[in-house]
């Protein structure tokens, strides 16, 4: 019987989660070890974001368990199929985040706060890929960022790296 924990989001929603899944978070793992996690574990993460975090953790957990159960026979082909499955899952996950940048933003903060290095790395790479090939103005529009450079600064930047913004 798996040990379950109850996580409480900042907007008071309760998530019942297996210990193994949630222990990927170094922050929560430490809370459990320190004995601070009796009853509900309160987290400074919204329910919407926490659901996404758990979606990620479950997928990762799923992958680890399957690998443990494998024997060597037929493993290579299986691994290849699994890699395809994971890629597909990750693409879908990325697409959802690209479409809702507020969730992406909150998820970045949450992965940092919960100390989930694999998710953090995945999200940073996602943002890096999103800005690739775009001009500063396009990036600002994409993330709804205000241009806070003074005209002088802007001029200096353009002069310094003028060539980079060539088509």
């Amino acid at each position: 019987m798996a040990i379950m924990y109850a996580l409480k989001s900042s907007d008071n929603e309760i998530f019942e989660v297996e210990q193994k899944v949630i222990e990927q978070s170094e922050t929560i793992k430490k809370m459990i070890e320190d004995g601070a996690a009796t009853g509900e574990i309160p987290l400074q993460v919204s329910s919407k974001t926490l659901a996404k975090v758990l979606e990620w953790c479950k997928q990762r957990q799923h992958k680890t368990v399957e690998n443990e159960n494998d024997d060597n026979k037929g493993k290579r082909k299986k691994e290849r199929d699994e890699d395809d499955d994971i890629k597909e899952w990750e693409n879908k996950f990325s697409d959802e985040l690209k479409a809702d940048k507020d969730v992406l933003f909150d998820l970045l903060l949450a992965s940092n706060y919960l100390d989930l290095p694999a998710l953090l790395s995945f999200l940073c790479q996602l943002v890096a890929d999103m800005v690739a090939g775009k001009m500063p103005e396009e990036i600002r529009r994409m993330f709804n960022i205000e241009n806070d450079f003074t005209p002088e600064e802007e001029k200096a930047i353009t002069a310094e790296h003028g060539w980079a913004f060539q088509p």
Partner: protein
Amino acid sequence: MAANWSELNHDLLVEIAKRIKLVDDFIAFGGVCKSWRSAADLKNYMFKYNHMPQLLLAPSKESSCQREFYNISKGVSRQVCLPEANDKKILSSKGWLLTIDRNWDISLLHPYKSVQIELPNIRSFEDWNNGISHNIMRAFFIEKFVLSTSPLEEEDYTVMVIYGRTRKLAYFKPRYKAWITLRPTCSKVTMFSDIFYYNKKFYVVDLYGRIMVCDFSGENRNPSVVAEMPSIDLYGGIIPNELVRGDVLEELYLTVVSDEVLWVISRRGVYRRPIEPGSDVYIYGTYDFQVFEVKLLSSSSSSSWTEIKDLENKSIFVGHNSTFFKASHISGCKPNCIYFADDFIESYFFRSIEGENPEGGGRDMGIYNIEDGSIIPHFKGKSVDFLSPPMWVELGFD
């Protein structure tokens, strides 16, 4: 509440910046807003030497201070105001230029930052020969220039050059008053052809196919032999069969892939040759390359040489620059190709093309595909000069 991406904390922005591969994207990232700019510090740029190098074109006749950097993957060029390079012999390494002026003064020049560092004058070379002091001989005196690291990154950098008629090796380190000539530990005659810096060592190859190492971590920096190209008698099959001057090869380049694996690149066609047998009209032009993988066997101080037709998807850049290679998937260059520029001074200096007086180097350029032996052009315009023919510049962005 909507997310405020300009207030994302600095550490996370740095993590994002570190994952941006292309320098154009990295710079655009820093142009978004103040907080993003603070994360786009060049020290956070992790793919510094991986992008497409640019071709520094020969100076144009019209303008003396403007120079053009041609981006062969985009097909566009960018003007840079570079009066410091005017009327100078130029060589390039790690994004820096070595310049030699009419007074034989030598400098390092960073083309984007306009940073200039004075190096000792050519007269400080040990066997500087006044007999060749004619101004135009600047084109010949230093044939190769290699920086260990960018002087902006590392204070204790080293500059290594191949110089003089007999192609010797000399180096400079900050605060030295003169160039120091290095002598091979073996007593054989050498004429150096290329230098490659790797892991605190300078690897050099001479025109007899000998590879030597100058270890700069210790006291004795003189080159000692670590590998020799097998002799023709023993390994007739793998040696270029058209040897030009006795047992000397035409032109060799060197790259170091790892502590044990080196690639020696042999270029053929750079020597002037009669357009047809008996003719006194000469031509030159690269028609072939061969790449040998040399494995250093430390146990027996011997080496194995194998010709390869696959550069592990890398591409090699050769010319008046220090030889380097790029992983094609990041830089956007074609895999398993040799991008070559014109660097054989003796050929482009003298009358070489039918019916024309020499105009300088810049004709013998192209992209050689090692898999099928084909050659295609990379720059289609005309760009020629004696002192500064087109050459590759690795943009270091330091």
